[in-house]
């Protein structure tokens, strides 16, 4: 069935500002959709309120409106543009909710705008918990037992029927589980239900049996209008039920299901897709499985492209949003080619020959008053993804991609907090899900706790725990070598360290040596990573898209071409103070390089981004932004230079070390970056230029800081160097607080100078 000719102008709604639970992944999906629809000759009208997006660049749509996302404004745009159709499934929950409002207010009907992708009744059936539950019951699938309520009195009446506490409270139609939670007693229950009723735009909350601790899975599904249905990717959560999927470490593909069990889940996902009635496009269906007996329940489905679709696209190489947009205008899966192989159709299920790990990025340190506890409400602000041949390799790469100062799964001298905790404190850190729990798991294995005991406390599946225990124990194998010189003699061990994902920094830490020496030792032995293709087909067919990840093996598939190559370092995971804007810059840098005839080489680790779309640059390396990983790529590609200034703080922090290792830094030289970013150098510069500054000084230690503050007088403003968005920046009125905050500032800036200014109160 070819594309539709009865529609010409299609409107897309973006997802607005970045909020927790909705970040740049919808820029990625929206940009893909704009490109896909225009490629087919449709006129695209785009509305989004977020100007830091690629999609709002004038060249991506025929008409772009940067306007608030309200129904009045959309109606006004309908009047001006008279679109034939609205595609609501690529702009996240924001676009979906807005579409439902437009539908409810009769605006779509009034202006004759057809919904394509998913109809309003479909969206409602998937999003409304009671309709969804009825639909699941109809097709013979189990859901957690639950009751939907609209008042506190109704809520209280459900407690006994559902078997008592703990109970889960889920507000209807909210993003990232806002206003929900788990109640372990009557007081908590009252509080959470009250908040939930207020957060839900329809004052509805669902009270549900608690299945915390069960295994959690997600399947990404695509359907076309001829009812061809395929699963793009299965994802398994390392953190069991109880932690929001957005806050969970997740792994693709699913690891702990036999084929029988997986196929039952696949059948269920296709049934859900068909019963809910998503006509075309991508959706995800979430499942939980009781690890003791295999009882499976459906958790929910999103009738739209989601953050996990972005992850699944990057994890498999299958561009879900692009294909979804083409299906929405009438194509069927067999009519669309698989971009990667070119010769096979999109109507297949990707298979992969590596392990993908996503780790969420939290910023609790910026909110000292918010407790580092994870639950059903999403708290992470970004994420990083990594690809490795094995789970061990993939996890270690993901952890060092996080930009939280970690070099991998421990073995980097940053775990004193867990290592020094007594057993009870450690058990508590394992029992209550938190952003650092994985490192507590390592500490538990370091003190020889059994996997059974750690499973009991964390609920993490034994398969993952076995790997974590292996890694914790393997540290002894590495340090057992005694010295780097001895490790050089045991090449099999050295190779295995790298196969298990240990970074040079971790090996250096374990052997009390330096990263540079470890790298030199590897160079001498020729232990280098190879680059493998992400190709949707596990090497069964020749791949044409240059999308790579590193691993240790026999076969390097990334052969440098003859053109001059320039590397662009991306921004890594989103965090507070660094959102989508750096990705915008990197993508444009890549476009500019390509226009100039250079081969652009993108390196990034954030799966939500446009920069990690495989057709943004000439080559894409989905890799951690660390000195070790970046140097390998630079050398493999024989780049002429690297651009560090568009990726935000992450690449800037690498600039000096890269230059010291022979990387030609293009644009602002590292010494100039240093002069601006290092507060001490900057102060000297300002003095030299004769510009007035508040009285100030710099300090590295606590005592130095106190001395500076005494000299310039309280109150003082304390700022570390080389950090983003005011992290650890505070105003201090007394010495006792200065001492306390200096400890934190020093931790954030890793031995760099901290600037102390006199604080000008009431200054304009």
């Amino acid at each position, binding site marked *: 069935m070819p594309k539709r000719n009865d529609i010409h102008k299609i409107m897309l709604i973006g997802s607005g500002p970045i909020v927790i639970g909705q970040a740049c992944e919808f820029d990625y999906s929206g940009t893909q959709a704009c490109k896909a629809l225009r490629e087919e000759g449709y006129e695209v009208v785009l509305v989004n309120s977020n100007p830091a997006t690629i999609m709002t660049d004038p060249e991506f749509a025929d008409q772009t409106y940067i306007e608030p996302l309200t129904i009045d404004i959309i109606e006004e745009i309908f009047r001006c543009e008279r679109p034939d159709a609205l595609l609501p499934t690529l702009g996240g929950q924001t676009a979906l909710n807005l579409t439902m409002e437009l539908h409810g207010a009769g605006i779509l009907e009034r202006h004759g705008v057809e919904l394509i992708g998913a109809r309003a009744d479909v969206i409602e059936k998937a999003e409304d918990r009671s309709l969804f539950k009825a639909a699941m019951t109809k097709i013979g699938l189990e859901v957690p037992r639950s009751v939907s309520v609209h008042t506190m009195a109704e809520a209280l009446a459900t407690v006994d029927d559902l078997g008592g506490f703990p109970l889960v409270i889920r507000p209807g139609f909210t993003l990232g589980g806002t206003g929900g939670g788990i109640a372990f007693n009557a007081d908590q229950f009252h509080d959470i239900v009250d908040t939930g009723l207020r957060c839900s735009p329809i004052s509805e909350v669902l009270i549900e049996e608690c299945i915390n601790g069960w295994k959690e899975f997600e399947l990404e599904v695509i359907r076309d209008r*001829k009812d*061809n249905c395929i699963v793009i990717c*299965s994802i398994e959560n390392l953190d069991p039920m109880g932690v929001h999927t957005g806050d969970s470490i997740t792994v693709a*593909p*699913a*690891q*702990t*299901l*036999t*084929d*029988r*069990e*997986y*196929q039952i889940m*696949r*059948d269920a996902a296709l049934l859900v897709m068909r019963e809910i009635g998503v006509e075309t496009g991508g959706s995800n269906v979430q499942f939980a499985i009781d*690890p*003791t*007996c*295999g009882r499976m329940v459906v958790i929910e489905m999103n009738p739209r492209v989601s953050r996990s679709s972005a992850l699944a696209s990057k994890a498999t190489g299958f561009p879900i949003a692009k294909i979804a947009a083409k299906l929405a205008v009438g194509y069927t*899966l*067999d009519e669309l080619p698989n971009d990667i192989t070119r*010769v*096979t*159709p999109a*109507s*297949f*299920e*990707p*298979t*992969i*020959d*590596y*392990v993908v790990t996503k780790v969420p990025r939290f910023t609790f340190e910026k909110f000292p008053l918010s407790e580092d506890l994870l639950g059903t409400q999403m708290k992470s602000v970004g994420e990083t993804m990594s690809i490795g*041949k*094995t*789970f061990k390799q993939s996890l270690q790469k993901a952890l060092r991609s996080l930009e939280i100062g970690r070099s991998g799964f421990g073995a980097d001298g940053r775990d004193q907090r867990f290592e020094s905790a007594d057993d009870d404190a450690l058990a508590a850190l394992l029992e209550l899900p938190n952003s650092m729990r994985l490192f507590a798991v390592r500490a538990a294995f370091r003190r*020889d706790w059994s996997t059974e005991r750690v499973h009991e406390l964390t609920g993490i*599946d034994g*398969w993952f725990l*076995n790997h974590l*225990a*292996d890694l*914790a*124990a*393997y540290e*002894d*194998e590495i340090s057992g070598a005694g010295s780097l010189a001895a490790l050089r003699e045991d090449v*099999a*061990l050295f190779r*295995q360290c790298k196969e298990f994902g240990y970074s040079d920094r971790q090996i250096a830490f374990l052997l009390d040596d330096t990263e540079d020496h470890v790298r030199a030792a590897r160079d001498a032995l020729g232990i280098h990573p190879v680059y493998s293709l992400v190709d949707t*087909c*596990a*090497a*069964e*067919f*020749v791949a044409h898209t240059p999308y790579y990840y590193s691993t240790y*093996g*026999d*076969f390097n598939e990334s052969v440098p071409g003859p053109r001059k190559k320039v590397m662009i370092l991306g921004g890594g995971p989103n965090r507070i103070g660094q959102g989508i804007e750096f990705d915008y810059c990197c993508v444009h840098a890549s476009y500019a390089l390509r226009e100039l005839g250079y081969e652009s080489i993108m390196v990034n680790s954030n799966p939500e981004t446009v920069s990690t779309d495989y057709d943004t640059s000439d080559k894409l390396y989905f890799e951690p932004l660390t000195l070790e990983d970046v140097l390998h790529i630079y050398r493999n590609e024989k780049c002429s230079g690297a651009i560090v200034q568009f990726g935000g703080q992450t690449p800037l922090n690498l600039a000096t070390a890269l230059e010291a290792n022979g990387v030609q830094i293009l644009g602002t030289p590292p010494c100039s970056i240093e002069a601006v970013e290092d507060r001490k150098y900057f102060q000297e510069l300002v003095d030299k230029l004769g510009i007035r500054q508040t009285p100030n000084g710099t300090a590295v230690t606590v005592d130095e800081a106190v001395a500076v503050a005494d000299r310039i007088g309280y109150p003082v403003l304390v700022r570390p160097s080389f950090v983003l968005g005011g992290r650890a920046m505070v105003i201090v009125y007394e010495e006792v607080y200065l001492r306390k905050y200096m400890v934190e500032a020093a931790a954030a800036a890793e031995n760099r100078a901290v600037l102390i200014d006199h604080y000008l109160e009431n200054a304009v």
Partner: protein
Amino acid sequence: MTSRRDWKAQRSKTAFLALEDGTVMRGYSIGAPIDRIGEVVFNTGLTGYQEILSDPSYCGQFITMTYPEIGNTGINAVDHESRGVFVNGFIIHSLNEPENWRSDESLAAFLKRHDIPAIAGIDTRALTSRIRSKGSLKGYLGVTGAVTEADALEQCTAWAGLDGQDYACKVTCDKMFRWDDISDEASYWGLADTLPPTDLRIVAYDFGIKWNILRNMRICGMDVTVVPATTPADAVLAEKPDGVFFSNGPADPAAVTYAVDNARALIGKVPIMGICLGHQLLGLAAGGDTFRLKFGHHGCNHPVKELETGTIEITSQNHNFAVDPDSVDKSTIDVTHINLNDQTVEGIRHRQEPMFAVQYHPEAGPGPHDPQGLFTRFRDLISQA
């Protein structure tokens, strides 16, 4: 702390895979201490190593799993596809300890118990790419240390391989039996109450039949008698079956001449369905030819289009040979299904007689259940005949 796994011992248990093109890949032994020759193929399924290992169609072959983490769910008592393990060897990247509520045994223990040599630590992507460009390769798996790499290369090059070989006779049952021992499993999967009474008698030729075919036929109300590969057509007809089934199986269909003869004798006398090798045998019986695919289809993600309806199903596949579409007589045989990846024949139907066959595996095990309706179609074929 004490190390949980003895990596050093593992690193020292060296093993190698020598290929006829002269390549030697090194890893470590994780299976039985036996050196063996086989044809190296790769399977791209993410799940299902237990079903794959127990599928008799792999007899004579070394299976390379392209997915690197293997052994995750162990081996359980109910997911077997046959009475034993017929593969010649198993090649993986990384072996894991099992974690699953149904796991009874680790993969390593299972391989050793069934005398299957296996190697881990192989760059399976490098191996897969080699097979993709050169085609299936003869190989030698050396795990005992008794054979040098040079000798191994020589031996595998000299090996006859699977072309022109009848392997069905090696894996078929030795005497006729009735398939009705599904009860345990049926109750495990909650199927016991839903099983219909049997009202059709089927005779199934066992060229290496997968149990999931038998399970599916039972679910469709068929009472199946399984007979050895060489059973003459007369003996089959003497059972007065409502339908006859030609099963999957290993190696080269053209070498199983007795089965082609029996198929020719049965077409038109009784409704027939075939799967995989059975499909090829029926194609040969209808006057067609078969040929060897470069590296075969082995995986769970193959798109198959039914030409009449345009429906696309994601299918499980495992075959090295295929029916040549140009060789069949268009006046008697319709090509009903094609593989969308390479346009090869995935299904045929006799225009005049009640007979159809598919190259893929509608029974799954492992793989998607999309085409399971084909067993109902066999019922329909019988009732219309």
